[in-house]
């Protein structure tokens, strides 16, 4: 397994400084993420439900984008402007939590690198970073959630999105919570830790390579016999869903938060209203 050393991360999380004052519900600022906001609000609602069930007070500050597309395009100036807006937007929240390892990874790991030559903003970025978490790992590691109240009759498989896995240390947490979903069976995905080929703008800059990667991924997904694919990042999910559907696969695709929240009211990603 290739996961970065988590001990430092856990220690940071356990030091209490980013925690809540005793005696009140922690105030969690929901990082909605662009893709959830634009394409799949149901994931946002599922995140709110999971956080509230875990005992958090959830707020949704006005926000746009964490800046990752600009950051990976080499556009530092735009990234800085967006990062500053995000840092300001989430001031006053005990935690920043989002249903994406990629966007939260950007805020947790990359903001400090972005502001390394600007002491004031570096400090503010540091304070934000240490309070920023990916949704599922936040539920288990910080809020101590052991089991969710949800059911799903079927077999799912789970893809480890790269940023969640390698930047945020998300691996065991979703499996732990899925194990507690009534009726759900997990069929492990071969090469679960290999990239699906989304990679932000990579998938349109190098469509042929991206397609080969996502085709390999689709083959592995179909080999599990699962009826549903889950993951924690919308970009990867849309990529994999798009390819599976183009190949005529009947595997349904959802964000893991929807299953954990027990809310499958929205049709699976890429499916129409009447097919659920």
């Amino acid at each position, binding site marked *: 397994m*290739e996961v*970065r*050393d988590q001990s430092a991360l856990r220690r940071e999380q356990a030091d209490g400084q980013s925690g809540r004052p005793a005696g009140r519900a922690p105030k969690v600022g929901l990082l909605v993420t662009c893709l959830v*906001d*634009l*394409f*799949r*609000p149901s994931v946002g609602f599922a995140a709110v439900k999971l956080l509230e069930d875990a005992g958090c007070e959830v707020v949704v500050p*006005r*926000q*746009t*984008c964490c*800046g990752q*597309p*600009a*950051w*990976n*395009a*080499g*556009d*530092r100036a*735009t990234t800085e*402007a*967006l990062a500053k*807006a995000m840092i300001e937007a989430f001031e006053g929240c005990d935690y920043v939590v989002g249903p994406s390892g990629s966007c939260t990874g950007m805020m947790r790991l990359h903001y400090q690198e972005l502001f390394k030559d600007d002491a004031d903003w570096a400090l503010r970025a540091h304070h934000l970073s240490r309070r920023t978490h990916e949704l599922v790992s936040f539920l288990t590691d910080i809020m101590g959630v052991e089991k969710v109240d949800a059911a799903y009759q079927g077999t799912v498989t789970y893809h480890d999105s*790269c*940023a969640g896995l*390698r*930047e945020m240390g998300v691996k065991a947490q979703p499996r732990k919570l899925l194990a507690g979903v009534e009726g759900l069976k997990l069929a492990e995905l071969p090469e679960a*830790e*290999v*990239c699906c*080929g989304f*990679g*932000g*703008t*990579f*998938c*349109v*800059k*190098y*469509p*042929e*390579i*991206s*397609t*080969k*990667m996502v085709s390999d991924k689709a083959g592995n997904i179909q080999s599990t016999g699962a009826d549903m694919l889950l993951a924690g990042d919308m970009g990867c999910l*849309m*990529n994999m*869903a*798009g*390819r599976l*559907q*183009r190949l005529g696969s009947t595997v349904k695709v959802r964000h893991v938060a929807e299953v954990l929240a027990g809310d499958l009211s929205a*049709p699976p990603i*890429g*499916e*129409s*209203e009447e097919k659920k």
Partner: protein
Amino acid sequence: MKSTAHAFKDNAHRAMQDPQLTRALNKFKTGFPMKRAQAVAALPEFEALRDVGKAIKDHTLAHLDLYLETFERNVRAAGGHVHWARTAEEARSIIRGICKAKNARLVTKGKSMVSEEIGLNASLQEDGLEVVETDLGEYILQIRNEAPSHIIAPALHLSKEQVADDFRRVHTDLPADRRLSEPNDLLTEARVRLRNKFLQADVGITGANFLIAETGSTVIVTNEGNGDLTQSLPKTHIVLTSIEKVVPTLEDASTLLRLLARSATGQEFTSYTTFSTGPKRADDIDGPENYHVVLLDNGRSALLGTEMQEVLRCIRCGACMNHCPVYHAVGGHAYGWVYPGPIGSVIDPAILGVKEAGHLPNASTFCGRCESVCPVRIPLPKLMRHWREKEFEANLQPKAMRYGIGVWGWFAKRPALYAAAANIGLRAMAAVGKRRGRFKALPLAGGWTDTRDFPAPRGPPSRNSTGAAAMAEQSNAARDGVLGAIRKAASHLRDEAAARAAVEQRLSAHARNLLPARGQIPHAERVELFIRMAQAVAASVERVPERSRIPQIVADYLSVHNLPARLRAAPDPELQSLDWSGLPTLEVAFGRGEPEDQATITLAIAGIAETGTLFGASGNDAGPTLSFLPGTHIVVLPVDRVVGSYEEAWDLLRQRQAAKGLGMPRAVNFITGPSRTADIEQTSLVHVHGPGRLHILLVDSAADAPPQGS
């Protein structure tokens, strides 16, 4: 090598249409990561060693000028020559000059990516030299006139049928109906062919994995034994290497060696790791008379003191490409230059410029798998992003993308507008998408929808003069140029007096860094571990109750393996003192190894339990011709010389040499199992250029005491 990095997309397209390449990559992409994972799991200290390895390289890079000067001084003290080259052209002309001065006609080469980087072979061929690659994979590529597709498995893209066709096409003196259907047939044919080249070569050129400042040694790490024959048999050995390969001490190299093979091939240790120091000494039994080191800069010093400095930690193991899903999709040739994969995407723009090689750092999903396996923790995605920033600043990106990011950024900075603008488009899309759930095609998104549904939203080189005076002048200028560039980068970051003191301290302390617990066990258990580890790499081990039995045991061994009763023995007093006269049918000759020798016997200085490795050195009593020429190599190892780690072996060697009033021997060999290769279809085969059989006679001593100094 001429770059086609600018044509990455076309290269990648062609590669993905190639069914043979796809087959090879599919095998590769599961095999290599699995082997690495197993090797890492077997060494609990691996993660900690990565931190130490990174620290060693960082310290060395911060004092690079001082370590290079120390290295240079020690090479010269050992009788070798050091040449500095600012550019590929300078390096080529230095090597051409040496070959010319030696009236060379035939040059053999060990595997060297730096020689690919500078396009060495073509320039030597222009001078009328015959240049022969001796690594099996590189030899195959040479007769195909192809570049390596991987830095350690250069021919991984080929099938055995392709290789057989090439051998039939080129080896026209052999019967046309010979069998070449199995990898081993191909290996045997190549071995016989290359054996003559090794013996006839005037100059042997190798690369180096490490340079040791403390001793002025160059290190090669191989499995086939070709590198050792390349550098031991010709009169002249030239080491072509680059400035970032230097490390302070033998102990530092030992730490990095623990990372290298495990990361590269999943081996505990490669078959052969050889430290070379200067030319043949007066009473050595073998070795080259001339020893030259060419230190290439070629854009490396310009990275010092910049954000890109970390790439200079690279030890060229290939783990990043072994784990890269983009490399797995397109293979190495698509990258269009010497270094493929993630490390290539960082190095190539540094050497070729971002205009030529800009595709490479862009063709990454930043999945981070490369960084997660890099033995020296190079933040490869971060460095690729850095090149993207350079590209953005230079306005080199495709207009559409730049425009798109600009428009998106302008809106994204304005939350209310962003939401509104996004919603106008998305509402329109949603209205259509509601009915269908997804789109088969979208304007401006062809790259996506050509192959995927889009889920609908919900809500020419110049000639240098080669006159001696001109060469000397150029050499001084090059030395000053390279060292000056390094100093300029380092000077504002350090206190000179403190830096010199730190370097002195490190060179003399021989700090052991981090020893795996595996070998730090009582002597009896250590011997057991040695036997287990040696057998695991296909060496055979026989326990000998007392040394007087050795001659009979050797005679029996030769007979059992149907070998002639002839033995070449190292002229070592201990072996000479054995009573060979009781075996009149066994012919024993003492001296250096000869091409006709089928079996040799040598005495090891130490056995290293950690990896089942034999440790020996050249001198008047031993040398590489005995270890690398025969098909069968028998090694006597007294049980009290079994130590736990490489570092303990270095201590034994230092004591032994000091007692004789000598410094570092010309060649120091770590031998771990027989010679092997996986260059044909990633199939593991033994008996390449070095011995196919390694038989260890573990001799019990009267007092089973651990050796001095361990």
